[in-house]
């Protein structure tokens, strides 16, 4: 697939701190690309560089395979760190300025404000908004130009659970329209829920990049339970297609081998004459993968 963004060997030093270290990354068109990493791992710095507001110490990048910086940015909807607007202007007035910068008309303003649930407060001054509303306005501003690509830096920061769910819906909608989204987050759960691809940063270094699906599918974790736990444990102990297992109160947690499915386990147990009372697949959370990756990188 076409790459909308290619990053080549980017490094950013702040004095002795290396915020981003020799990073290379490609983002394909239509993906929802999560940049995952703990606080201070260089997510914001990376986004700042590709949005032309931070000068890299070294390295290059390009959008849409061309080098027309300003025109490219006009086609990208973006937020970086905390929302930045004119506090003495209303939501609508702020969006008008952005529309002018992006060379588009004002027709879309009401629509994007409705999309993020801010329409009722559109004529209030920005400084009267709560943090959650500011964040919503930031997302609205990124949607404004019907962008080819959205770059969002921790867009659900400071939102209540309902707000978080709404913003995630907005992101999914955007991606359904075939747009590309680049999303920085320290929330694994968020990346797992909305992203198709992800990269993990730690101390400014890219330590993993791949597809979210693949990671989730790599190994299945299954909870099993039976009237007779000892028999069950014996059987599982003999089961050859597992990686490991663990006792947990009245259940046994089995990690299956790569690409083995729960059906294989079930079939085996039935054949061994064990009546299962509980059999649930735990989606292997990205969190575990993430922690594994972080541990490995250390």
């Amino acid at each position: 697939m076409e790459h909308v963004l290619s990053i080549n060997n980017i490094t950013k030093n702040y004095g002795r701190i290396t915020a981003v270290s020799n990073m290379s990354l490609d983002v394909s068109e239509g993906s929802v690309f999560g940049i995952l990493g703990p606080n201070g791992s260089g997510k914001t710095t990376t986004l700042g560089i590709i949005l032309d507001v931070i000068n890299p110490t070294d390295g290059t990048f390009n959008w849409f395979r061309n080098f027309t910086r300003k025109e490219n940015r006009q086609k990208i909807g973006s937020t970086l760190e905390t929302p930045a607007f004119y506090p003495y202007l209303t939501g609508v007035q702020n969006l008008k300025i952005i529309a002018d910068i992006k060379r588009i008309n004002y027709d879309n303003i009401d629509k994007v404000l409705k999309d993020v649930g801010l329409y009722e407060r559109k004529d209030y001054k920005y400084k009267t908004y709560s943090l959650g509303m500011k964040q919503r306005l930031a997302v609205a501003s990124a949607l404004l130009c019907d962008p080819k690509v959205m770059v969002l830096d921790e867009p659900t920061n400071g939102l209540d659970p309902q707000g978080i769910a709404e913003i995630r819906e907005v992101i999914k909608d955007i991606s359904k329209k075939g747009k590309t989204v680049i999303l920085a987050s320290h929330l694994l759960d968020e990346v797992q829920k909305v992203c198709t691809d992800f990269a993990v940063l730690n101390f400014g270094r890219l330590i993993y990049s791949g597809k979210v699906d693949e990671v989730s599918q790599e190994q299945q974790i299954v909870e099993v339970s039976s009237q007779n736990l000892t028999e069950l444990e014996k059987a599982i102990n003999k089961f050859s297609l597992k990686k490991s297992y663990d006792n947990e109160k009245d259940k046994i947690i089995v990690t299956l081998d790569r690409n083995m499915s729960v059906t294989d386990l079930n079939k085996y147990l039935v054949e061994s004459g064990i009546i299962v009372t509980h059999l649930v697949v735990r989606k292997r959370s990205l969190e575990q993968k993430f922690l594994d990756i972080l541990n490995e990188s250390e």
Partner: protein
Amino acid sequence: MKRIIRIELLKVQSYSTFWILTSLYFLILLSIFFSGKFFLDFLARKGESLGDIIDPSGIPIYDFPDVWHNITYVAGFLKFILAIYVIISITNEINYGTIRQNIMNGLSRWDFLLSKLVLVCFLSIISTLFIIAAGFILGFIYSGNREITDIITYMEFIPAYLLQITAYLIFALFIGLLIKRTGLSMGLLFLYTLIVEPIITFRIKTDWIKGLFPLKAINNLIRFPFKKYALREVQDYIAWDDTLIVSVYIIIFISLMYLILKKRDL
């Protein structure tokens, strides 16, 4: 360019600080202009009681063509009010993070600088238009001469005034962009204007070297006019070398600002 102007207008349009400072500026200008005559009358009355010989109320400060020189000179003292607004405008952009957001959304750094220069030009031009209107009104109220040649003779002070105020506001913009903090920038602007440069230039004996300092150069454009009423020689024209020095400073400050914007992480 139309787009850049519209963006900057949207920014000031609903900003109460902008309206308060500009109204204050024009109110003070207006009251100074229209109190000049009353002040001279007041001096005359004082002088009468002291038995003085010259009658200050007869000094023709508003007569064409002198009125242009006099009011542009006096108005020059108030440009600091507009400079305060320019500093607020640029430091706000930095502190609110809107400069960064503007660039991310698709302004180039040059576009952004241009938008602030648009603000500077806008303020300078309305101030100059105000001075032109005030000159005509004062002249037609108080002046004995209404010959067309008299009316337009000293009107070269108008473009000089425009250049002077533009240069000063660009200097303020430069300080704001460099320092980033609102209060500190204003403090430094006043410190430099009122103390640092006067002290340095005071120690220099040669006039033309004094004239190379930015604020001295800006102020030199329109020289002190009132000595003429004591029958002393005054420079009642715009000198080309002053104009040139100020223009060079404008270019230097704009280039430095562009360089800062290019090099700095926003």
